[in-house]
C-alpha cells in the first residue's frame, strides 16, 4: 500500500491506540487547547486557521477562517458553533471514523474552534442512526466536563463552554447547514432561504458557524504546527491532507489520509489495492453520490477541490465509489435517483417532482423499456433541476444523473426493448 500522510489518523494508525482520554493525552493531546486558551486571543486562532488555507471538509470546500470571519461581533447576541456530523452523503464514512476512534482529538478541535468564534455553547448534530457513536461522543464529553476541559473556567482561563450532542432522526437533507439548523430548533429539516446566511442568523437567529467534523479535527494540528506547515501540504489553494472514504469494488475499501493532489488513479490502485478480482474499472463517482461520474479513462486527475471541478465533477465529501466492469450503470443511476427522490425535502417543485420522474424514468430502463426519447427526457428533467432550487440538493441530484446518461449512453441503450 502507498504511504499515507498522517495528520488526523496519526493516532488511529498506531497499534494499541484506543482513543481514550489517557491515550490521547499521551500523544500530546490538548496542547493546542492549552496554547490557544492561554497564549492566543480568539482572533489569533481565527487568523492562523485562515492563513493555513484550510477549506471545509463537509463538501463545499469553503475556507474555514473566512467563514468564521463573517460572524458579526458585538451584536449583543450569543455566537454559536455547530458541528455537522450528519455524514449522510452516500459513500462517506470518514467523520464517523474520527468520532469512533479518536473522539478527543475531534473534541479538542471543537473546543478550540468554539473559543475562536467566541461561542459558549457548541452543538454537535449527529445523524440519528448512529446511536453508538452518539453515546460514545456523550461519554467523552461527560469525561471532559469532569476533567475541567468543558464547563466553567476551562483550564483556569475563565473561558466557559457547554457542549451538547443533538441526534437527528433520519433525513439526509439535515446535512445541509440551514436544514440542520431548523432540525436543531425542533423543526422539519427544510433548508432556509439564504441570505441571511448562518454566520449572521443561524441557530436561534444568532451568528452561527456550521463546520464539518474533519474540518474541526484539523484545527489542533494547525494551532500546534502553524499555518505555514499546513499550507506546505497539498497543492496551491488546496492545502493539507484529506480523509478519503473509498468504497465499492476495490480490494481494500476504507478511509485513507492523503495530501490533496494525489492522483485519483493512485487512490484506487495504490491505496485501495485496485479492483476486486483484478477486474477492469468501469466508472468512479469521485466525491459522494452528488458528484458526476468519471469514466475509467478520466481517473488521471489530481484529487483536490479545484482539479476535480476542472474535470467537470467535484470532490464533494471526498468519497470515491469505484465500480468494476460488471456494473450496470443504469442500476447505479437508478439507485442514485432513488436516493435523491427519497431524501428530497419537498419544498421546491423541480426537486420534488423531478426526482420522482427521474426515478420512474430510469426504472423503465431497468425493466428494459427504455428508448431514445426517454434518454433525452432524463437529461432534460435532470438538467431542469440544476440551478432552479432553493438549496444545492437540486444540483446535487441533477448533475450526476445528466452525467450518467452523457458518459454512458450505450449502457442505457442496452436496456431498450
Amino acid at each position, binding site marked *: 500500500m502507498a504511504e499515507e500522510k498522517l495528520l488526523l489518523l496519526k493516532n488511529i494508525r498506531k497499534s494499541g491506540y484506543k482513543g481514550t482520554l489517557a491515550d490521547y493525552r499521551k500523544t500530546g493531546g490538548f496542547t493546542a487547547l492549552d496554547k490557544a486558551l492561554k497564549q492566543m486571543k480568539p482572533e489569533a486562532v481565527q487568523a492562523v486557521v485562515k492563513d493555513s488555507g484550510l477549506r471545509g471538509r463537509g463538501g463545499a470546500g469553503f475556507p474555514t477562517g473566512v467563514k468564521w470571519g463573517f460572524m458579526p461581533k458585538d451584536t449583543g447576541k450569543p455566537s454559536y458553533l455547530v458541528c455537522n456530523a450528519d455524514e449522510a452523503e452516500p459513500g462517506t464514512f470518514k467523520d464517523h471514523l474520527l468520532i469512533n476512534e479518536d473522539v478527543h482529538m475531534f473534541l479538542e478541535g471543537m473546543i478550540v474552534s468554539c473559543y475562536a468564534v467566541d461561542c459558549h455553547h457548541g452543538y454537535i448534530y449527529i445523524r440519528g442512526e448512529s446511536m453508538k457513536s452518539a453515546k460514545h461522543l456523550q461519554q467523552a464529553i461527560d469525561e471532559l466536563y469532569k476533567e475541567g476541559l468543558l464547563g466553567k473556567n476551562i483550564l483556569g482561563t475563565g473561558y466557559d463552554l457547554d457542549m451538547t450532542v443533538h441526534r437527528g432522526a433520519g433525513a439526509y437533507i439535515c446535512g445541509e447547514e440551514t436544514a440542520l439548523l431548523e432540525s436543531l430548533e425542533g423543526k*422539519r429539516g427544510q433548508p432556509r432561504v439564504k441570505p441571511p446566511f448562518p454566520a449572521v442568523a443561524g441557530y436561534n437567529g444568532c451568528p452561527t458557524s456550521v463546520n464539518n467534523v474533519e474540518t474541526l479535527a484539523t484545527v489542533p494540528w494547525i494551532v500546534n504546527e502553524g499555518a505555514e506547515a499546513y499550507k506546505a501540504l497539498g497543492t496551491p489553494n488546496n492545502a493539507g491532507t484529506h480523509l478519503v472514504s473509498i468504497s465499492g469494488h476495490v480490494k481494500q475499501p476504507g478511509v485513507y489520509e492523503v495530501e490533496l493532489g494525489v492522483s485519483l488513479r493512485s487512490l484506487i490502485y495504490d491505496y485501495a489495492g485496485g479492483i476486486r478480482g483484478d477486474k477492469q474499472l468501469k466508472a468512479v463517482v469521485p466525491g459522494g453520490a452528488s458528484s458526476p461520474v468519471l469514466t475509467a479513462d478520466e481517473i488521471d486527475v489530481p484529487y483536490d477541490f479545484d482539479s476535480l471541478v476542472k474535470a467537470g465533477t467535484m470532490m464533494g465529501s471526498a468519497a470515491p465509489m469505484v465500480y468494476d466492469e460488471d456494473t450496470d450503470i443504469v442500476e447505479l443511476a437508478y*439507485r442514485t435517483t432513488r436516493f435523491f427522490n427519497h431524501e428530497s425535502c419537498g419544498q421546491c417543485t423541480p426537486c420534488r417532482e423531478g426526482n420522482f420522474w427521474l426515478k420512474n424514468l430510469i426504472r423503465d430502463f431497468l425493466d428494459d423499456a427504455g428508448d431514445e426519447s426517454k434518454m433525452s427526457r432524463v437529461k432534460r428533467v435532470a438538467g431542469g433541476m440544476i440551478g432552479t432550487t432553493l438549496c444545492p440538493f437540486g444540483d446535487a441530484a441533477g448533475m450526476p444523473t445528466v452525467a450518467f446518461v452523457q458518459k454512458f449512453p450505450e449502457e442505457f441503450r442496452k436496456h431498450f426493448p
Partner: protein
Amino acid sequence: MPEFNAKTLKEADALCERYAEKLHALLPLLHLVQRENGGWLPPGWDAYIAEYCETTLNHVRGVITFYNMYHTEPVGKYHLMVCTCVPCGLCGGDGVLEHLEQRLGLRPGQTSPDGLFSLEEVQCLAACDKAPLVQVNEEVYERVGPDQLDKLIDDARKKSA
C-alpha cells in the same frame, strides 16, 4: 393522554435546558419517548409532547412524519435495517435484503406478528466500506453473508424464547 413519569420528566427537563428554547428539544424528546416505549410513539404521545413543548399538535406531527426514525406503529424488538443505497446496493445489499425477506417472511416496512423482528430498507448508513451490512438496533454487522444472517435470527429467537 400518556405522560412522563417523574424520572423521564426530569430527563426531559434536563434536555430542554440544553437549548435556547424548549421547542428546540423536540427531536431528543421524541427519541426519549420512543426509547421508553419499545421503539415507537404510541397514540397520544404527540399531543402530550406538543403540550410539554408549548407548541401545536400540527407541529409535532409534521416533525414526526418528516423524519424516518419516528415510528407511529410498533417496531420489532430487533429492528433490522438493510442498506441498499449506493454503493452498498451494488456490493451485495440486495442479496442481504432478499435473504432476510425470505427467512422472516417480511417485506420492508413490516413487523413480524410476534413483535420480534421488523425489517427496513435504508439509505446510506455511513459505513459503506463494510458492505454488505445490516444494522440491528444499535449494532452494525459488516460484510454479512447468509450464514451470519441466519445465526443472527436464530440467536435472537433463542434469546426471546
